[in-house]
């Protein structure tokens, strides 16, 4: 089995807020990230797929197809958007880097032709990232 990883970037705004809590509690837990005016990041999305090398093409997956799926399902949806205000899954899900990785997994799962989704990694900054391995993940 071979693992193959493709990278893409998107830029988006967000803030952290839980409607069930008071403003003071939101500020205590989320700190500056709870500012309702929001802030933004340049995110990097890394999608790793697993599969066998096709003996005829030498591919695990057609990279163009993988790129198209990553863009149509995630990058084009999230890029230059406010995640809390414009993306349906973040209406009741705080758009932390963990939840962005989970949501990107859910958007990609089952849509990559010929290969199994192995890992979705989302970098919020170069010093901070989350990995989602799916419900049946290796970990």
């Amino acid at each position, binding site marked *: 089995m071979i693992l193959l990883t493709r990278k893409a970037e998107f830029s988006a705004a967000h803030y952290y807020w839980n409607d069930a809590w008071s403003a003071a509690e939101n500020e205590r*837990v989320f700190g500056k990230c709870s500012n309702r005016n929001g802030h933004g990041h340049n995110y990097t999305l890394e999608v790793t797929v697993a599969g066998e090398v096709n003996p005829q093409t030498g591919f695990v997956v057609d990279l163009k197809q993988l790129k198209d799926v990553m863009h149509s399902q995630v990058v084009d949806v999230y890029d230059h958007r406010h995640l809390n205000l414009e993306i349906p899954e973040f209406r009741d899900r705080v758009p932390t880097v963990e939840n962005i990785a*989970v949501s990107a997994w859910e958007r990609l799962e089952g849509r990559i032709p010929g290969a199994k989704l192995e890992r979705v990694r989302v970098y919020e900054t*170069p*010093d901070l990232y*989350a*990995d*989602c*391995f799916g419900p049946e993940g290796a*970990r």
Partner: protein
Amino acid sequence: MKVTFTRRYHFSASHRLDCEALTPQENRDVYGKCNNPHGHGHNYRLEVSVRGPVDHATGMVMNMADLDAVVGSSVVERFHLANLNMDPLFEQDVPTTENLCRVIHRLLAVELPPGKLDRVRIEETENNFFEYAGEAIRGER
């Protein structure tokens, strides 16, 4: 969903690779320049990964501020601008980055909530890095 959260930290430290059980010549043969008598240093890049369910209320595996506080007080403050050979944790073991990786894993495993620590990864330079996920966890893979 299986999710891990990783944060990167930086510290700079010196070390010298020298094993007491070996002769001076053997140490030079094994460790090369790393055995030079007065030591040398690196800007280490440390990645700490924690795992667990994403808490529905916070959207987090673990609050980053809490992780920063634990890693800061038990690892970065201890090793930043220090000589690793002088640390009691390296009284018995050569401070290779393999051993540093294990030592940091051990320090963090007792400070973090049980079962939270997933993996420790250290880059000694851009071109060499080391990972340790604990013996029990490795066995499960």
